């Protein structure tokens, strides 16, 4: 299973970034081998519109089963759902803590976006 987490920096000790589309980094964690891959999201941080959509595209390319982020807007949620990626909303700690919660089955998948898009 691959879990992608939005993060404020590129290490497992980084705090989960509460923003999905404009997160600083995405960290992909593979539960099979316990390894992390960090992907910078800098091109979307300053996007005028559609940051969430492009972030979703970048995240989907990492083939995750689950995404953990603080807030996901309606378009990003639609894009992730179209790629059959589940979304869990949580940003109260670090990336490593998020992964422990997922492993312990303590994070529920959301059934919809939890914030309005910034554009509409």
């Amino acid at each position, binding site marked *: 299973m691959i879990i992608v987490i939005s993060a404020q920096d590129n290490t497992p000790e980084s705090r989960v970034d509460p923003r999905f589309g404009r997160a600083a980094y995405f960290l992909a964690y593979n539960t099979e081998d316990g390894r992390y891959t960090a992907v910078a999201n800098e091109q979307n941080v300053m996007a005028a519109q559609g940051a969430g959509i492009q972030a979703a595209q970048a995240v989907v390319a990492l083939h995750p089963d689950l995404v953990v982020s603080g807030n996901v807007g309606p378009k990003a949620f639609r894009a992730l759902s179209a*790629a059959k990626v589940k979304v869990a909303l949580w940003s109260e700690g670090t990336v490593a803590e998020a992964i422990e919660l997922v492993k312990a089955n303590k994070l529920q998948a959301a059934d919809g976006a939890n914030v309005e898009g910034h*554009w509409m």
Partner: protein
Amino acid sequence: MPNLTIAVASGKGGTGKTTVATNLTVALAREGLDVAYVDCDVEEPNGHIFLQPTVDREEEARVAIPSIDPDICTGCGECSDFCQYNALAVLGPSVMLFPELCHSCGGCRLVCPEKAITEIPKTVGRVRTGTSHEAGFIDGTLEVGATQIHPVTSLVRRTVGSHQCAVIDAPPGTTCPTIEAVRDVDYVVLVTEPTPFGLNDLELAVGMVRELGLRFGVVINRSDIGDDRVETFCIRENIPVLLSIPYDLECARAYAGGHLAIDRSETFRHMMVDLYHRVEEGAHD
């Protein structure tokens, strides 16, 4: 193209653009002029409330958006890389379109190496044509959820027939929708009020019309409130004050009831006719 196209605009909302535009139009129609009221405030058209037009034609304003053939698309991502508005996302083998972000540039169709993209029309607004009080009536309304204002305003402007005179009710502000409404007109009437807010937004509007190289003058509405800084500004900048409209309870009552002020106040009707003469002089200077 009308012989004389007048745009009624303002930097600030709520200064009285629609009051001036609707009353000016009908006052001129009653003087025997072949005139049309043209509501270009497509996000909030409200001239129809005062003019109660008989509508005899309606046309859709459309833009082109991409349609991606999933059988041909390989998910290569060229289209999504090209799109500056992030309207396309490659999600595994398929591409997802977010039509509300598309600016209809057509670039995705050109860059697609598989030719999997065609363009399909999307309705973004409606333009109505009719008559009201012996005057022509045209207005445009942006569809709920659509963000493409420019194509609707543009269709409204193209729909104006060959009247002697057209009075455009422009949207407030100094951004793209306003510029599309005032572009290439013969004269811009900037309606303002003598308050600090009115002055601030008038200065912005003056900057816009000067940048566009348009002839213009100012109408000061509710001229007996506030202070004299708008007048001082106009004198200093050598801008003609075409008309000062004092606050009038009868006019306010007419407005609140959705009626034309010229039907309640002969003074106001004269003001509108005088305004037209000032504009006509200014436009042909």
